[in-house]
């Protein structure tokens, strides 16, 4: 297992190194190197999955570490932790990464930096696997920032575009904000426990080395990292902009894997989070789920709709962790990775087709990502259409699709949470409201893109289905949204006992002491009680959302324009993303820049030029004055009376008084030395 995961970690890194240095000179610009590397990692990861399935041990765990640095008392060991969660996550990363690699062959076809693109994908896959495999907070943080780097590079891949370069920078900085908290959290754990290793930290928390408010603060610190990486409110602003990157990147990094790293981390570290932290997590996650969904309904850029949908779904996962149903959150991470990656591939396929059509028509005025410029593509792009429909059903939580299973579990978790603590009724409200809105905007996307007539018949006529390299990943991933892949060996999706997934991924009890704790078992029981209610309610809400969307965008019984006008202010809020970007720009970024300018001015123009140089000027003046006195007073008046001897002395004195500060200091120095030497003798 350890060897296998070492292979998984190293191969993409090798691919990165080869591509960066030799990619341009290799045939096909070396894409086969990268693809070969990820295919092997996929094979190895699947092998690992098979072996844990055979073992079928929910407590399975392997660990290996080496000493990274050892200063005596201060020591850091880095290593791997492999359990069922790790393996499942490795498979997800390897799978989506492989799909994105294959998809990119055609999507990035004519890009002059084709080889570098694959290099960055390799770097990303390497760093992401590093996060997954980490057994300690240091490796976690290292790889955490490294995925940030590859994300920066890939968002800004088309760096000639200012928007892309801006988006990359914004993503990195927003993540850094979260990482500050993350790092503080890590330091709090380290100073209390004396180790970065997960198991040591867990033991430290269990024994009470860190407890009470401090533990809560440390947990909140860790959560800050997740807020940044998983783009939760208030640091969500970078993810929609990240859509400036190539679409396969959006699928891999900004939908399926990297943004889920925050969720993964919380799943890993769940047992050390205090109830207070969990409550905060639940609220932030739930709020993000609903908040992002309300933005998604008014966006017209096909990728942005998906981006907000991703935010909303990440909110779901985070909320699930907060409610204690963290295995449900992890389950949703897995199912979401499949259908959301596939949705992005679909969107990429549409954009690709639009690009080609517009290129042929030599039309540069039409935005190829604006859904209002699409319509009726159903017949032109059947593969894209059907895979997207399947995935839309999955994300909407329609029975027999994977999304139904995982979403249902999360919603049951929120109900269970509210049962235990009725004051948190908002949490299930967030969850169910988002469940209503999600199908609405997803079908809106489908209807606007694929149904009805096109606004530009000329463009429409040029639209073609994408090549096989792009459709195959879509078909594979949409196939993986079928419930069966998750519920085996149980055939009936309505029984959640005996699925391989729930057999392997079992909730662990928290190790936190000194708080009122709900055990994992209690949560499970409570979830079971609420299961049916959650299921029925969510299906009903999904149906309602679909109905509205159908009426509005397909049947045209309700006019979106009229509704937009009727909701007025609310519509504008949603359309402008609640003006969050503008608020940050105006109240944080701009004032910061202004502050720096002021500080820079004070530092140089005032402090240095006036104050420090002032010393110089004053001494200079003093020197001149004393020089004058010397000449005018001493020399002219007295010497005239006394004689040439003194005149000579005066003149030589004046030469010494050159008005140069350094001379004075040199003489001062000399004086001190002479005095001291005299003292000794």
């Amino acid at each position, binding site marked *: 297992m350890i060897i296998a995961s070492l292979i998984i970690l190293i191969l993409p890194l090798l691919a990165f190194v080869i591509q960066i240095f030799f990619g341009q000179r290799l045939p096909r610009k070396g894409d086969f190197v990268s693809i070969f590397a990820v295919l092997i990692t996929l094979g190895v990861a699947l092998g690992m999955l098979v072996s844990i399935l055979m073992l079928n041990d929910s407590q399975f765990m392997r660990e290996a570490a080496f000493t990274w640095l050892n200063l005596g008392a201060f020591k850091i060991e880095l290593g791997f932790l492999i359990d069922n969660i790790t393996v499942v996550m490795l498979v997800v990363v390897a799978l989506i990464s492989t799909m994105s690699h294959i998809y990119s062959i055609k999507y990035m076809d004519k890009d002059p930096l084709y080889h570098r693109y694959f290099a960055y994908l390799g770097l990303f896959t390497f760093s992401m696997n590093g996060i997954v495999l980490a057994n300690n907070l240091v490796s976690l943080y290292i790889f955490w920032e490294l995925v940030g780097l590859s994300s920066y590079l890939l968002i800004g891949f088309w760096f*000639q575009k200012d928007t892309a370069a801006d988006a990359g920078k914004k993503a990195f900085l927003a993540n850094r904000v979260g990482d500050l908290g993350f790092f503080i959290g890590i330091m709090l754990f380290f100073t209390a426990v004396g180790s970065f290793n997960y198991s040591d930290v867990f033991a430290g928390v269990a024994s009470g080395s860190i407890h009470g408010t401090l533990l809560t603060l440390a947990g909140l610190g860790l959560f800050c990292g997740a807020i940044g990486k998983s783009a939760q409110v208030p640091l969500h602003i970078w993810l929609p902009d990240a859509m400036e990157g190539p679409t396969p990147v959006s699928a891999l990094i900004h939908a399926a894997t990297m943004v889920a790293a925050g969720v993964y981390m919380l799943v890993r570290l769940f047992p050390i989070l205090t109830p207070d932290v969990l409550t905060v997590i639940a609220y932030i996650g739930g709020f993000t789920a609903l908040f992002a969904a309300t933005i998604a309904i008014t966006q017209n850029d096909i990728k942005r709709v998906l981006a907000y949908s991703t935010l909303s779904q990440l909110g779901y996962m985070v909320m699930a962790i907060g409610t204690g149903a963290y295995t449900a959150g992890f389950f949703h991470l897995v199912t979401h990775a499949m259908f959301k990656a596939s949705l992005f591939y679909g969107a990429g396929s549409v954009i690709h087709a639009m690009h080609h059509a517009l290129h042929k028509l030599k039309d540069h005025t039409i935005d190829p990502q604006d859904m209002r410029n699409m319509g009726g593509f159903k017949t032109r792009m059947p593969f894209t259409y059907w895979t997207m429909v399947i995935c839309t059903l999955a994300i909407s939580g329609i029975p027999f699709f994977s999304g139904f299973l995982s979403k249902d579990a999360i919603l049951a978790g929120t109900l269970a949470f509210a049962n235990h603590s009725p004051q948190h009724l908002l949490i299930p409200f967030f969850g169910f409201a988002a469940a209503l809105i999600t199908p609405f905007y997803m079908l809106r996307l489908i209807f606007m893109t694929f149904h009805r007539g096109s606004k530009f018949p000329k463009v429409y006529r040029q639209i073609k289905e994408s090549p096989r390299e792009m459709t195959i990943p879509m078909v594979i991933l949409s196939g993986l949204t079928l419930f069966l892949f998750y519920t085996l060996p149980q055939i009936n999706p309505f029984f959640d006992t005996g699925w391989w997934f729930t057999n392997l991924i079992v909730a662990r009890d928290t190790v936190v002491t000194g708080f009122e704790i709900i055990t994992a078992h209690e949560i499970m029981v409570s979830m079971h009680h609420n299961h049916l209610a959650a299921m029925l309610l969510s299906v009903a809400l999904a149906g309602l959302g679909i109905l509205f969307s159908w009426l509005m965008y397909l049947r045209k019984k309700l006019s979106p324009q009229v509704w937009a006008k009727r909701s007025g202010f609310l519509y504008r809020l949603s359309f402008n993303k609640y003006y969050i970007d503008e608020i940050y720009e105006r109240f944080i970024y701009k004032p910061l820049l202004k502050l720096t300018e002021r500080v820079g001015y004070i530092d140089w123009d005032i402090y240095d030029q006036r104050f420090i140089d002032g010393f110089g000027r004053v001494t200079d003046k003093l020197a001149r004055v004393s020089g004058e006195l010397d000449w005018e007073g001493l020399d002219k008046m007295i010497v005239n009376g006394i004689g040439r001897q003194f005149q000579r002395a005066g003149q030589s004195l004046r030469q010494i008084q050159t008005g140069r500060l350094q001379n004075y200091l040199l003489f001062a120095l000399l004086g001190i030395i002479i005095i001291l030497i005299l003292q000794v003798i």
Partner: protein
Amino acid sequence: MDFHILSWLIWLPVLGMMAILLIPNRFTNTIKITAAVATGIQLILAVVLWFAFDRTTGSFQFTEYAQWIPSFNIFYFLGIDGLSMPMVLLTALLMFISVFVSWKTDKMVKGYFALLLLLDTGMMGVFTALDFFLFYVFWEVMLLPMYFLIGLWGGPKREYAAIKFFLYTLFGSVLILIAILALYFNCGYTFNMVELAEIAPTVLSGVVWWGMSAIKVIWILLFIGFAIKVPIFPFHTWLPLVHVEAPTAISVILAGILLKMGLYGLFRVNYAMLPEAVWWFAGALALLGLVNIIWGGLCALAQKDLKRLVAYSSINHLGFALVGMAAVVAAGVMNGNNLMSAQAGMNGAVFQMFNHGTISAMLFILVGVIYDRAHHRNIAGFGGLATRMPIYAGLTMVAFFAGLGLPSMSGFVSEAMCLIGGFSVFRMIVVLSMLGILLNATYFLRAYQKIFFGKLNKKYSDLPEINGRELFTVIPLALITLLFGVYPAPFLNVIKETVNVLIEQVVTLGGSTGLF
């Protein structure tokens, strides 16, 4: 056996300098090659020293001891420990690189390289001298060549910059000299720094001058003297000016080596000889570190000149080392005997010194590369260069990300160690200084975007790519940064024993009941 490797390291450049002075002016290439050979051999010696260095002990090695001025008890006493070893290597490496960075110099070539080598001797001497008088002589020997190198080969305002540099440092030197003499007269007329570290803490303990403890007075004198070199706020304003005016190679040396002398002095003199005052001053030190980090970061963000930005980033980076240094007090009883944090912070500070040396050198070389081509350094005046100079853009990215403390680069390890170390004692200060990391990322990424991203500026559509010589100067530094970032143990093994000795010194002789 008696190879006197340290003497060779120190005096080799002087031999080179003499050779250069004998070469007629017109053979400029011969002069450059001579300088390269001298520094090259020095680098080889330093590398040999690095591998021969005994990592199991914290005491001085390769010592050389000879009488110099017996009537004042002055000796020619050299030796290195884990604190000086990395600095010696860094000096040799950066000097060798600097020769190649200066390869295109065409103004008074002979004088330039002769002074460069003299400077080399001064710096090597400071890092290896164990006699205080010798130390001070070398300290002053550095000053003069530096003054001329800035004043004669610098930019438009070079004379102003040179004088400012000279006055600032001279002011500091005077204070250091007074402190040295105070120690000399009060501790039995010895300049032996090893002895002083043993004697001074006990002898000076309890002595009061003008109502203030002697230890504190001497500490303050030394601190200001060294703080100017680091530089520590508010003694920092000479730095951006001098960097902007100095030629590239001099900026590399200044940022890479000279700034380290301040911190080296604090460790070697303040910490070792006046451990009691460490306890008194640690809080202030951490606070000054914070100010350096935040103030330097804010100023860097405001800069329009790329070289000024890099200069302010030095102020920001060295602030982390101060926070790490202050963490030594974690090892005391009153802070819960947290030896772990003290080790993290102190080793982190020494590591940060070295890393700042390589990273800032890299940054300044890269700034020089673009300046040589475009003849300006205005950040907003470029745009889209990544299209035109992909290799240069890639290397600058490595350097910038090293500067903003990306994990896998050495700067991250040392900064993290400093912060982790400081955190156990100075919780609020460390939390606030984390903001510096954010500022760090902001100014580097902003500058990078403005220079390299966006549409290619038409003016620069035929800018030549970075050439072989320039690559030769940057790539070794980038590799070292990566190597120690991925696996820092080989570096830390060299310094850790000495740092432990230093921690023990501060804890046991500093008035707090010890741990060891």
